[in-house]
């Protein structure tokens, strides 16, 4: 039997990098192609995060390999456009990350309040 080192469940335990979090968030409501992802990420982060094309496709390749997103051919065949969408696993990971961040912001807010008193 082939010994698989990669543990699918282990993804839940690790924190996502900001570009990956933004890509998954961008795909949470609808599938998007590369340029639409760049524009949406720029908009979401108030132009603070501007991913380069190289960074975007490197991250997309890793997300595809981890089965967190999937790639499909868009119906408009006039331009050879591939779109990306979140898989169930990707959605589950994004929800875990949101819970983790919510918990951290709650702790941070409580500590700031404490120090103000």
């Amino acid at each position: 039997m082939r010994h698989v080192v990669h543990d699918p469940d282990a993804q839940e335990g690790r924190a996502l990098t900001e570009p990956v979090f933004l890509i998954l968030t961008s795909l949470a409501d609808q599938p998007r192609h590369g340029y639409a992802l760049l524009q949406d990420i720029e908009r979401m982060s108030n132009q603070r995060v501007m991913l380069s094309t190289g960074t975007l496709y490197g991250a997309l390749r890793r997300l595809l390999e981890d089965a967190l997103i999937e790639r499909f051919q868009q119906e408009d065949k006039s331009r050879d456009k591939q779109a990306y969408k979140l898989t169930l696993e990707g959605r589950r990971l994004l929800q875990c990350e949101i819970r983790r961040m919510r918990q951290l912001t709650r702790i941070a807010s409580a500590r700031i309040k404490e120090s103000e008193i």
Partner: protein
Amino acid sequence: MHNLYKSILRLYPVEYRAAFAPEILQTLEQAAAGRRMRGRFSFLTFAICELTGVVTGLFSEWTAKWTAREGYVTSRCSPRNVSDLPAEVVEIQDRLRRALASMEFAIAHHDFPRARFYSNEERVTRALLQRLMREYKLETSIDGCA
């Protein structure tokens, strides 16, 4: 800028180029057009960021290729033809793949209670997939997808 970018992209691993290069160039073109409209300074910073990004990516992708344990740019990176299979079947196939991967991982690490759990999940998912295959009158082999 476009030609220099293209030349650097040619140095990427062939699997990566085959899967992503045309799409990357198309996205780059669209992004460049958007930035040109914002003025020269904006376009210059964009060009510097893009060239830095493509060089950094070159090293990352070769490293990923050399260190990949289960293949680099696998079939998961290929676009799925949405009309091939019903979405429900595709989801169940993915679930089956994950159950098998988790079971193999658990066995490899001698975690037998967990392996049993995933084995049960695999059996249930496989039965569900068979039922869906019959419903949709599909002849695709289940083993082929696992």
